[in-house]
């Protein structure tokens, strides 16, 4: 069953379809939220809130975009809410700010993770959505709510900075 059909089934109240949607996308939404927030606890919350929002609002999905783009848009909104709540002190951040976990990773991999983590948030997001998710720049522009030119510019500066940071 394709992703869009699955969302239609979620909209009709099919719990099994929601579970299937979770299986397909939770990992990706989590990594995206982690890229935005750099906090595993908050990223987990974002996954939960995103799936709950999908359950309540799946009928709002229009086939104009891919399901992944739609989900990333919801997750982005939830991530901003989580970030704002945390900033207001409404939450108790039980863990330190997320650092890339180097366990089991080669040193170079950890260095790449650190370099990505140090990018400005909007650039980090573009790098994730393009390189990990393979989203075209017009879809990234839709997720971020900015013109395509801004996405290209963010990517240009992110790449330049990463190349400098990761010089051998």
């Amino acid at each position: 069953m394709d992703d869009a059909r699955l969302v239609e089934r979620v909209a009709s109240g099919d719990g099994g379809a929601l579970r299937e949607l979770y299986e397909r996308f939770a990992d990706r939404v989590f990594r995206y939220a982690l890229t935005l927030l750099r906090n595993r606890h908050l990223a987990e919350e974002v996954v939960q809130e995103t799936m709950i929002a999908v359950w309540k609002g799946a009928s709002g999905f229009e086939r104009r975009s891919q399901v992944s783009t739609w989900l990333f848009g919801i997750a982005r909104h939830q991530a901003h809410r989580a970030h704002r709540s945390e900033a207001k002190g409404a939450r108790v951040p039980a863990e330190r700010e997320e650092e890339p976990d180097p366990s089991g990773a080669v040193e170079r991999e950890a260095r790449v993770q650190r370099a990505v983590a140090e990018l400005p948030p909007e650039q980090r997001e573009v790098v994730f959505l393009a390189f990990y998710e393979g989203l075209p720049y017009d879809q990234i522009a839709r997720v971020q709510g900015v013109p395509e030119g801004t996405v290209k510019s963010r990517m240009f500066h992110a790449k330049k900075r990463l190349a400098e940071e990761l010089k051998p």
Partner: protein
Amino acid sequence: MTCDQARELVPFYAARSLPEFEGAALIAHVVGCEGCQSDLVETMSLGHELRRAFAAVPGPPEGTCLSVIANTVGVPLLRVDLGGDLAGFSVDVGAVRSGVPITGRLSILGREVPILRI
């Protein structure tokens, strides 16, 4: 295509996310431009490292799924099935934080159609 335009598109080409027609135009430029060739090679290598780095980050904890299910579909409490293989009706009663949702499905020749959600 100018070198400035090419440099904007190179990362998306390396990310395998550039639309085909733009990719073709980019390659047509790169073939005749040593500077952009070098940029493309470096960015392809960077892209490979980035994908590996993102993939190496651990995913969500296993309990996240259960939490989502409990807050949406709910923990199943009761299921009633009526009818047979050709046609039937089933009702599920669950428990979520906000109440006790009831959903019903009609099944005809193995295809299920949701008809009730309270």
